[in-house]
């Protein structure tokens, strides 16, 4: 490791920011049980401060790229290094910032847990891998951190490992992410074969290898290297598969709702704000590799995922599951945006979504936390994540209510919120994109609008059910125990609420073009059509308000629509489009069955072959043994026994009786005489 020569200290700072949480992981794991909160918080805070500093240095400045040699295989040198540009510093601030908030929140939220030191350690590992992921400069390093992120998510989902569902969900998350990893790895193999390097700057930078490679006569050519052009598309699909798994896109989305078995703070940090955004981040980072075919698929997958998840969220009753599906739906928006080329809009939405979705989870978490305590105090037990059993919490938990309302408004994209800026920008781009095309794609923006309206319905259904009306389970006379969460948690909610407003991202609440963040990534290639810029937000918000009003009527004033339960639409939505059942049947069962079959094959056929060879050999040897004993040895024995029989015959004459001897003599003499007479 000689020549650690980071001449400029920006890269060193980035390295330090990433490594600090790793220290926290190692030290807390090595330390005694029960502690670690302060250490974890201080390391991640330091990390956050460093990220802020870096952000101020790198944002809209010259990108920074420093690397040193990692290892050499054959003649190919692999480097490990740090690549800092707008995207990575933005992600750094986002990840470390939200982590700090979640750390503060968790001090209270996880206080009573016995194995809390593991929790802090795992959070440290997660922050390390996530920060490492965003600053890495080569595909191999990104892949490394990519899987580490999945691993820390596995640990955190399965944090309460004695719960069966939690360990099940952790396994499911890891295995499904592994499917994506295979895609990622395949992509790496293709890129490496084509370009003999995995360095991001060399591949995707200005005048990078990807942009100089060309497609001619069905061949994908780069320098002297060439392969059929189909491999370019396959590479795109492969990377996209990786992103799909991590960002929970159809058909690899089923792990995310199950991942809600982890602590809510974890769901908020990992499964809403940061890790699931890694897929979108990956697509953004290697954007040039995707060819039009892949981008089209991306559009449809994203759009379908957004729509499907929204329909599922309509009828869920577990508060965290609704939010999980909402996350999937929003990630679908981002993926779709990337597919249509709305690069900056997608990153913008990623950022705003991180804040408001984090807030949604944390507010939900404080509701769950308080109800949990209420249950413990009153020794009253019910499912404290079921929104059907909640109600009327508005007055008891005003801060949670405030946070939840703001975040929901941002999620729906109501004016004056951050979501209004980012989400509407995506929809505007979608309309613009569709306007340049013909055919079935025209329905795509309308599908997204519909999805957006559904969002308004399901999220306000949640708000109204939890915070309005009356609870069936929580009795009014005992409500004295139920109030807002401890101050630490409430502060976090307030800070996040601030980040859900437009002011953080743009001074003009109506125009996303004025956002500093959007400008930071502006590479848009879509032709602007100004009519959409005021029409789309208008239609969208009008529809949203109408739907919120309807929701209010249904769930607060209790009017109509309750009979929808039992219809086929309700069933499909409630059972999450039966994906789990289908996968269970198609993949898990069949793999299990195939594995049992192969094992039986192994035991009976292959080992059976070996054993039957052995049996054959022993049988042949038995036959030979028989032949040897009976035939060959038999001949020898026969000579022996022949003389024995003769001896035995003559022995008979030796009877010891004189008269016999005499008789014999007589017979002998007589026969002698007879013979001599005859001859």
């Amino acid at each position, binding site marked *: 490791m000689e020549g650690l020569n980071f001449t400029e200290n920006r890269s060193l700072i980035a390295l330090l920011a990433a490594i600090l949480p790793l220290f926290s992981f190692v030290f807390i794991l090595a330390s005694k049980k029960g502690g670690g909160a302060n250490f974890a918080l201080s390391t991640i805070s330091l990390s956050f401060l460093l990220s802020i500093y870096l952000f101020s240095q790198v944002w809209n400045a010259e990108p920074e790229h420093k690397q040193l040699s990692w290892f050499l295989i054959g003649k190919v040198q692999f480097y490990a290094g740090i690549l800092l540009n707008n995207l990575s510093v933005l992600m750094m601030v986002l990840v470390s910032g939200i982590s700090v908030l979640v750390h503060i929140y968790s001090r209270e939220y996880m206080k009573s847990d016995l194995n809390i030191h593991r929790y802090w350690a795992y959070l440290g590992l997660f922050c390390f891998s996530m920060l490492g992921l965003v600053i890495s400069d080569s595909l191999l390093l990104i892949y490394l951190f990519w899987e580490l992120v999945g691993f820390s998510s596995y640990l955190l989902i399965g944090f309460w490992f004695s719960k069966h569902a939690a360990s099940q969900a952790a396994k499911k998350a890891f295995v499904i992410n592994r499917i994506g990893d295979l895609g990622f790895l395949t992509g790496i193999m293709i890129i490496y074969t084509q370009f003999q390097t995995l360095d991001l700057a060399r591949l995707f930078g200005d005048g990078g290898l990807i942009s100089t490679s060309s497609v001619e006569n069905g061949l994908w050519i780069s320098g002297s290297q060439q392969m059929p052009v189909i491999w370019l598309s396959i590479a795109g699909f492969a990377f996209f598969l990786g992103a799909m798994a991590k960002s929970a896109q159809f058909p690899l989305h089923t792990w995310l709702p199950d991942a809600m078995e982890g602590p809510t703070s974890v769901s908020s940090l990992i499964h809403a704000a940061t890790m699931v955004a890694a897929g979108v981040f990956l697509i953004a980072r290697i954007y040039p590799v995707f060819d039009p075919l892949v981008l089209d698929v991306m559009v449809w997958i994203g759009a379908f995922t957004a729509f499907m998840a929204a329909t599922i969220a309509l009828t869920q009753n577990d508060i965290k599951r609704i939010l999980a599906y909402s996350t999937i739906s929003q990630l679908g928006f981002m993926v779709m945006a990337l597919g249509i080329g709305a690069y900056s809009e997608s990153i913008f939405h990623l950022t705003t979504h991180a804040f408001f979705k984090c807030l949604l989870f944390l507010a939900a978490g404080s509701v769950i936390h308080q109800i949990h305590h209420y249950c413990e105090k009153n020794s009253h037990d019910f499912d404290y994540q079921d929104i059907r059993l909640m109600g009327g919490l508005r007055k008891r938990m005003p801060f949670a209510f405030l946070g939840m309302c703001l975040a929901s408004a941002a999620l729906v994209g109501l004016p004056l919120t951050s979501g209004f800026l980012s989400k509407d920008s995506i929809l505007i781009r979608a309309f613009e994109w569709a306007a340049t095309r013909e055919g079935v794609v025209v329905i795509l923006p309308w599908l997204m609008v519909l999805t957006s309206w559904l969002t308004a319905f399901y999220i306000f259904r949640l708000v109204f059910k939890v915070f309005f009306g009356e609870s069936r389970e929580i009795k009014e006379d005992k409500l004295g125990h139920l109030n807002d969460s401890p101050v630490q948690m409430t502060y976090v909610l307030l800070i996040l609420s601030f980040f859900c407003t437009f002011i953080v991202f743009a001074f003009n609440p109506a125009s996303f073009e004025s956002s500093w963040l959007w400008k930071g990534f502006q590479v848009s290639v879509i032709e602007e059509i100004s009519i959409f810029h005021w029409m789309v937000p208008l239609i969208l918000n009008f529809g949203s308000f109408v739907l919120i009003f309807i929701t209010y009527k249904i769930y607060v004033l209790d009017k109509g629509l309750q009979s929808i339960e039992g219809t086929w639409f309700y069933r499909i939505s409630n059972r999450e489009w039966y994906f789990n059942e289908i996968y269970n049947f198609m993949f898990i069962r069949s793999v299990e069955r195939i594995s049992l079959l192969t094992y039986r094959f192994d035991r009976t056929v292959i080992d059976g072959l070996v054993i039957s060879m052995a049996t054959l050999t022993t049988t042949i040897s038995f036959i030979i043994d028989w032949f040897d004993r009976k035939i060959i040895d038999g001949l020898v024995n026969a000579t022996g026994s022949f003389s024995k029989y003769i001896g035995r015959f003559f*022995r008979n004459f*030796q*009877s*010891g*009786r*004189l*008269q016999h001897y*005499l*008789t014999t003599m*007589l017979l002998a003499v007589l026969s002698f005489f007879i013979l001599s007479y005859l001859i």
Partner: protein
Amino acid sequence: MIPISHFMLISAGLFCIGLYAVLTRRNAIQVLIGIEFMINAAVLNFVAFGRYDKISGGGQMFALFAIVLAAAGVAVALAIILNVYKYFKSINPTKTDTLRD
């Protein structure tokens, strides 16, 4: 004159009777008697063939000699039989088979 063949027939008959007795009797005394029969058959032959040696009477002489020898033999044989009886408590020759291998 009695032809010589008559003597020989009688002698052969005697011999055969004696032989039969020797081979089949279950009593040593009877076997001994059988032996006497055979000796006497021989003696009879001597006497009968003495006809052809009238001058020196060799046939008669041999007959006398054989009779004496037979008497001595019988004495010895009886002594053996007595001893056999003492030892085996039986004079059945089939019982005295200690010569067997």
